């Protein structure tokens, strides 16, 4: 099938920016980021199965700044994709399709994702400190 006969759309550059277009591409982007989180999960499981040395190496990797940055990115992508996914599911159920609602629900998703990520890390660290003491 030749490629240049395909209809081309949408022409993004002719539209004024609105929140919905950014959140749409962020949903895909966070999905791709979460694919790397799924790789990380399998890496951790394999390391656990391989024994103490491999497990220690995995923990060493996630203690590095790159590992810590990945965990932060994955948690933010998770909460964003979760909340915006729920937004999508409510659309599929037929709700929230007015301009006012899909704009405000978009901003709500952004703010809530950041807040939930922060809260999860704070609560996680507090509980871990409490459990260790």
């Amino acid at each position, binding site marked *: 099938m030749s490629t240049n006969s395909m*209809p081309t759309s949408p022409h993004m550059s002719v539209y004024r920016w609105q929140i919905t277009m950014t959140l749409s591409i962020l949903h*895909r982007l966070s999905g*791709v980021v979460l694919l790397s989180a799924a790789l990380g999960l*399998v890496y951790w499981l394999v390391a656990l*199965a391989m024994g103490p040395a491999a497990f220690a190496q995995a923990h060493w990797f996630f203690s590095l700044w790159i590992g810590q940055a990945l965990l932060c990115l994955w948690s933010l992508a998770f909460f964003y994709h*979760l909340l915006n*996914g729920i937004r999508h599911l409510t659309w599929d159920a037929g709700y929230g399709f007015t301009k006012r609602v899909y704009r405000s629900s978009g901003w709500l998703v952004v703010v809530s994702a950041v807040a939930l990520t922060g809260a999860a890390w704070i*609560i996680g660290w507090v509980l871990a400190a409490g459990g260790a003491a």
Partner: protein
Amino acid sequence: MSDLRTPLSIARSWGSGHNGTRHWMAQRLTALALIPLGLAAVILFFWVMHLGYAQAVAVMHEPWVLLFVVLLVGVMYWHGFLGLQMIIEDYVPNHGRVFIVITLARFAAVALALLGVISAALVAFRSF
């Protein structure tokens, strides 16, 4: 030959892919399942985060943890593949290449999910 046809008419002549509804429904159902599974994964992560090797192995010996990991990995890779398939279909321009790339992604998703599930099962059923 197709000079006199509009882009819409060309697109229409490709017709239905015949399995769009199944893909759409599977994506929504796995998304619904991942709401509780994903939230539980975050809680489990903060629980396991500070554990040493022996403690992590002990956690994996809990039957419900193994069941949870199998469900999480399976549904996660299924949903991840469905999403990746949409992205490939949208951004890879050549139809033949779309098929090849999606097939590779499908193999990778199945292989990685199996790797995770088998690793978890090995840990769970190994006695120390």
